Structures are given as C-alpha cells and as structure tokens.
C-alpha cells in the first residue's frame, strides 16, 4: 500500500514560493492501478518525482508498505514520456538496466525473456534507441520496468508522444501484462480516454496548486470493447464535467 498524507511541495522560483501540491492525501492499495488526471501544471509530475525518490524536499508523509520512500531499498519502476532510455545502450542493455542496478547482473532469466517476447522486442536486442520508432522505444521502457519486478510502477504520460494507433496498441499491451502481474501503479495522464481505459480508480486533480478534487471508482475498467459502450460515454461525460469545473 502507498500512503500519502498531507503532502505539500513548494518550488522556489526567483523570490516567489510556488505551491505545486497542497495537502495531498491518498491511499493506493497494493496491486491496484490509479490514473491521475488534471490540467497541465497541476503538479502531476511533482507527485511523481516525490514517489520516485527524486524530489526529497517535501512536507507530509509518503510511505510504501509503511516505509519511507527510498529508491535504494525499494524497487521503483519509472516510465517517462520521453522513454528514458540510455542512447548508448542497446535494447537488451536498456531493458536489463533495472536488474543490473538492483541485482548486480544483467543475465536474462525465463521471466525477462517472457516479458521481452510479450512486448515483441525480443528480435531487436542489438539495436540502439536511435534505430527504433517511438513505440518500440516505449516497449523497451515498459520491459525494463516489468523486468525490475517493481514494488511501485510510476508512469508519466508514457503514451502521449505516440501516434493514435500505436498508443491504443500499447495501452492494450500494457494492460495485458499489468493484469498478469498486478503491480501497484500510479499512471499520470492528461487524456480522459486513457484514464478511463487504464485506471481502476481515477483521481481528478485541480489546477495549480494540485489538490484532489475527486477519487472515482471506474466502472469501465476491464470491460471489453470499452470505447463502444454506453458506460464509457457516461463516465467520460462525468469526468469532463469534474475536470472543467476545476
């Protein structure tokens, strides 16, 4: 379980203090997937930096399984919009990077072979990121996160730089793999469609400073042919209303 209590983050810009997150509290149960949606500049990325242990200067308490966040002892998978691959490592080395840092070796076991195969990148092992399409690069980033077997998976608008067809393909692929392993996931997006498709719960954030407007159970999660259903339409309208009211 991830517990966030009264999280406040301030940024200093010139001499002004800007409040990015304001008394932010939420519990995310183990093995669940939450999508966070809100306007740009609402502190979504700030939240992610706190959860990934990059930003350490915050107020309030944030714990994973009752322990304070520390990327050295916990396993945190991070998937970014720009993929976060290292250009000097080939697909194989990039995918195994998490294991290499955490376990000290980058040998493939059955599990990582299976993940690479499922993501369809087992044939591209020797390629460098610049030789891959955006979709392929993001597959590598997803593979890296899953091979790490993370306690917490953080995704920061991972599909927003991709074209519509690739995006839907990868959303489906991601969800399939996610269902097999049920990693606790925080998924940040600015797309209502994505929030509905991938979130078991949807958290709507206010414009700056980021506060939680509402946490919704998502009845659309795990429905087949979601985008053709009435539930999808109804939920989408409801979300749009909350987001636009701010």
């Amino acid at each position, binding site marked *: 379980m991830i517990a966030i209590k009264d999280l406040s983050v301030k940024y200093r810009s010139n001499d002004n203090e800007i409040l990015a997150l304001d008394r932010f509290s939420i519990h995310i149960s183990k093995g669940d997937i939450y999508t966070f949606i809100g306007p740009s500049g609402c502190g979504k990325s700030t939240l992610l930096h706190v959860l990934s242990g990059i930003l350490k200067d915050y107020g309030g308490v944030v714990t994973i399984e009752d322990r304070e966040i520390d990327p050295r002892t916990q396993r945190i998978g991070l998937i*970014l919009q720009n993929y976060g691959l290292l250009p000097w490592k080939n697909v194989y080395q990039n995918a195994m990077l998490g294991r290499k840092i955490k376990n000290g070796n980058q040998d493939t076991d059955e599990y990582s072979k299976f993940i690479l195969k499922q993501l369809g990148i087992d044939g591209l092992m020797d390629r460098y990121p610049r030789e891959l399409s955006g979709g392929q690069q993001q597959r590598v980033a997803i593979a890296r996160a899953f091979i790490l077997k993370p306690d917490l998976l953080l995704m920061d608008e991972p599909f927003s730089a991709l074209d519509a067809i690739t995006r839907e393909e990868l959303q489906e692929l991601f969800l399939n793999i996610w269902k097999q392993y049920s990693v606790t996931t925080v998924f940040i997006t600015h797309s209502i469609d994505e929030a509905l498709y991938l979130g078991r719960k949807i958290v709507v954030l206010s414009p700056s400073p980021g506060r939680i407007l509402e946490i919704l159970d998502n009845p659309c999660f795990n429905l087949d042919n979601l985008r053709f259903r009435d539930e999808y339409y109804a939920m989408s309208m409801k979300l749009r209303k909350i987001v636009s009211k701010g």
Partner: protein
Amino acid sequence: MIKVLPKEKWQGALYSLAIVIVFWQLAAMIVKLPIVPSPWAVFINIIAIFASKIQIHVLYSLGRIMEGIAIAILIGVPLGFLMGYFYRMDRILSPLVYFTYPVPKIALLPVVMLLFGLGEASKLIMIVLIVIFQIIISSRDAVKAIPDETFRSLKSLGASKIQIFNEIILPASLGEVLTSTRLALGTAVSILFFTETFGTEYGMGYFIMDSWMRVNYLDMYAGIIILSLMGFCIFMLIDIIENLLCSWR
C-alpha cells in the same frame, strides 16, 4: 556492424593528398628554387633516409606527444567530470580555468625551462599545460549537457554515484572527450615542434630545424612530411577508437 574506418574517409584522404601533391609540383615548377623541391625528390629522399636518419626522431616525438596527451587526459578528464557533476566544484574551479585559459602558455616556456630544466620534463609540461584546458572544459561541458531526465530513471532505481558514473557520465561524455583530444592534438603537434627546437638532439622539431640550418631542404621537407604524417596517424587512431567505443551514435 562497426565500421572501423569508413571507405569514404580513406578515399577523402587520398583525394586531398593528390591535390596537395599537384599544387606542390606546380609551385616547384614555377618557383624553380632549392627551397621548393619537387614532391618526388622529397618522397625519394624519405625512402632513402627514413630508417637511417628519421626513425629515431619519430620515436622520440611520438613518445612525447602520447605521454603529454595521456597525462592531460588523466588529469583533465576527471577534473572536468567533477566540475560538470558537482556544482560547487564548478563554482570554485571555473573562474580559475577561465582566467588562465587565454594566457598564452607558450610564453611561459622560459619560466618552465628555468624551473624544470632543458630536458624532457619541461617539454612534457608545456604540452600538458596547453592541451589540458581544452580537455577540462569539454569534459565539463559534456557532463553538463546530459539532460536531467537521463539521470532521473537511474536515480529512481536507487543507483549509487559510481553506478551513475559508469552507466551515464562516462559513456555520455566519451565522444566529446575524444573530439576534444583530437582538436588538442593539432595544438600539441605545434607545441611539440616548438619545444623540440631547444635542449634536445632528438625529435622531429630538432630534425627539421637542424636540416634547415644545414641548408638540406630535401631533409627538411622529409621531416615536415613525416611530422604531418605522424599527426595524421594519431588523428586516425582517435577516429578508430571513437568508432569502436561510440558506435551507438
């Protein structure tokens, strides 16, 4: 597949060599003075005297330049990395580097010679002194140019400083370091020539100046060509290393 030396590069080198020879030949035919001998006479002379007269000088010069560059890299690169990664180091050392960089270090040659003598030490110190600044600055800038996001995914994995160094800083800046070494090389060859005109009887600088004094222009040109060739070979060597180590580019 790694192309160690692309075909275009060799073709380009041969093509430029041909052009230089044509112009040289033309100049020799027009001027008709002993100070501009024909290229063929010089090439024949090289073949005749290389083993007996030039070889030993090449070895001395090559040794000095390699040592000089190696010392400059061994000191300059770590210093540049520290300055690029730790903001405080940069704040303390950058003004010092910027202040001393434009000082024409070759003008310090008399001082270096007085302090370290006329021998090998002062020659090496001169090469290092002049080459090291380019290497410090470019390795610092290479580290600074690595985007924050690149560090982010490793930090979220809880990577240690050593892991960050091995996985990011070293591979990301290796190319820049090699490029600056290549640039520094041109300067190093000029400095080498200059320092070898004093206090030694070995080295290409000595050989060229000595041939000049003896009014042996064929030998002098042979020396100039061999010195250039030496620079070219080290240049290509760095190219090959770069292609091998930075094939991801």
